[in-house]
C-alpha cells in the first residue's frame, strides 16, 4: 500500500512519465485502462498481490493439462510481461487446480480439487448473460451453457425454456462462454478486475 502512495507522489513530480511502463501495475493503472479481456489462473491472488508474487517461472502453464494458460508478451503492459492468463473463449479453465499445485511462490493459491474450496476460493470473474441475444430468452430452448457448467444448479440455474441465471457461486471458469453457440456470445465472463 505504501508503494502505491510512493507512485502517486512520483506521478506528481512528473517522474512517473519516465517510469510509466513499470508503474502500470494493477491497482494503479492496469485496472483502469483498456486491456485485453483476460482471466488469471484459478486461485490467483488479487491482481496487485499476484503481480507482487509471480516470478514468471511459467510452471503454471507447464502444469496445465489443457494448455489453457497462455503468457503475456507486451499486450498488457510491462508489468504483466510473461505472466499467465486465460482467454475463456479460446480455451476455458476446467478447474483442475494443477497450476496452484505447481506455483512455487503462492501467487496462485493451492486449492484442493473439490467443489467446496473451489467455490469459496476461486474468483476468476463472473459470467454475465446478455438476454437480448441468448437463444433461450428468444424462445428457442438452448441450455448449452447450463450443460457445460462444471457447477450446474450451484453457480448456474435454468428455468422456463432453459433460460439460464448465474448465481453468486460462479467462479468464472469460462466453460459456458466457450460452449455458447450464439455468435457473438450471449454469455461472457467479466474478469474480476473489471467488475
Amino acid at each position, binding site marked *: 500500500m505504501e508503494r502505491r502512495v510512493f507512485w502517486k507522489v512520483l506521478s506528481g513530480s512528473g517522474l512517473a512519465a519516465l517510469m510509466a511502463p513499470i*508503474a502500470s*501495475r494493477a491497482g494503479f493503472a492496469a485496472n483502469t485502462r483498456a486491456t485485453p479481456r483476460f482471466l488469471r489462473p484459478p486461485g490467483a491472488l488479487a491482481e496487485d498481490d499476484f503481480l507482487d508474487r509471480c516470478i514468471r517461472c511459467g510452471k503454471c502453464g507447464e502444469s496445465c493439462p489443457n494448455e489453457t494458460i497462455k503468457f503475456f508478451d507486451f499486450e498488457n503492459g510491462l508489468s504483466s510481461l*510473461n505472466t499467465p492468463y486465460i482467454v475463456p473463449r479460446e480455451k476455458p479453465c476446467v478447474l483442475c487446480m494443477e497450476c496452484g499445485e505447481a506455483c512455487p511462490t503462492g501467487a496462485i493459491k493451492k486449492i484442493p480439487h473439490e467443489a467446496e474450496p473451489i467455490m469459496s476460493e476461486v474468483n476468476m470473474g463472473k459470467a454475465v448473460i446478455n438476454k437480448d441475444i441468448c437463444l433461450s430468452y428468444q424462445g428457442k430452448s438452448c441450455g448449452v451453457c447450463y450443460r457445460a457448467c462444471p457447477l450446474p444448479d450451484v453457480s448456474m440455474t435454468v428455468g422456463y425454456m432453459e433460460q439460464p441465471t448465474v448465481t453468486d457461486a460462479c467462479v468464472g471458469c469460462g466453460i459456458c462462454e466457450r460452449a455458447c453457440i450464439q455468435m457473438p456470445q450471449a454469455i461472457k465472463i467479466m474478469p474480476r478486475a473489471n467488475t
Partner: protein
Amino acid sequence: MNSIIPINSKDLVETRFVLRRHLNKLRWLTLAIVFFLLILLPFLHLYQTYLAANAYPLLSNNEKLIFNTVESLTSPFTASPESDLNNFKGTTWSGTLFGIQLSDPLAILTSMTASFTISTSFLMSALIPVLLTLVLGRFFCGWICPATFIYELNDNLGTWLHPLFDKVGLPIGRLRFSQRLKYLVLAVCIIVTTTAGTVLISNIYPPAVIGREIYYLIVMGSFGVGSLFFLATMLFDLLIARRGFCRYICPGGALYSLLSRYRILRIKRDVTNCNDCAKCNTVCQFGLDPMQDSFGQDCNNCSACIATCPTDALTFTTSISDVKFQGAGHLGKKYNKQGIGNQL
C-alpha cells in the same frame, strides 16, 4: 638399468592421466544435459496434455510422433505419466527436479523485495542452491546455466570471427568494463522490483529468459519477446565485450558472486609448476588472471584453466581465501632470469 629408455619429463606430464584436467569436459556434459532437459521438459508437458485430452486419434501426425517418442522414452520409468511427470517441471529459474522444488536465489531475493512476503516452501526451494554456492562458488554460472551453454558457444564463434574482423580493420568485441558493474545492476534491479512491486528482473535474467523462450517455442509455437533480449545479449558478447553480459551485467551472477565470496572450493596455482605461459588467462571466460593468482569472487570454478594448463600447475584446493600473488612461475623464463631458480 641402462636398458630403460630415459623418459623426457615433458612427455610424462602429457601422458599421465590427471582427472581434474578432464573436469571441463564433464562441465560441458552437464551444461548440455541441462540444456537438453530444458528442451525435453516441454515435450513431456505436451505428452501430458495429449494424455489428458485422451484423444490419440485426433492428434496430427507431428503430434503423434511427439506422443509416441515421449511415450517410448518415459514408459520404462513410469506407469502413470499423467501425475508422475509433474515431478519434472519448470526451468532453472524455478523448477521441480525429481519432485524436489529448486529455485534460483535471485528469484527468492527479488520476490521478497517485490512483495515483502515469502512462503516458507519457496524460501526452502533455494536452500540447496545457496548451500552449494557457499561451498562451490558460482558453480551455477559455469556448470548449470543454460545461457552459459549458448554464450560459451557464442564466444567460440567469436574466437573465429574476431581475427577476420581484425583483417578488415574492425577490431571489435574487445571492450572491458569493471566487473563490479554487475553489483550496480543488481542494486538497480532490486530498487526497481521494490518500487514497482513486481519481479521484472526475470525478464532480463538470461537463464530465466532462455528456459521460458524454449518452452514458448515448443509449446506455443513461437519465441516470445524475451528471445530478442537474448539475441541482443549474444550480440553484445560478440561485438562489444567478450562474455560481457555474464562478466559485467548479469544480476544473478552478481548475487552468486556475493554468496561465493568465502566459498570453500577454489582453484589455486602451484607456483613451482607454473611456466607463465598465460594460457589460463586466455581461456578464462570471466577475464580473470589465474596466472597471477587473481581469482576472487568472480571465479565460477569452471576448470577451463585447469584443462588448458600444460604443466598441471592449477589445482583445486579447499580454503576460504585465495593465496596472494606468489610471483613468477618457477618453470618460466622470468623466474630463471631473476636467478632465483638457480639457487634452488
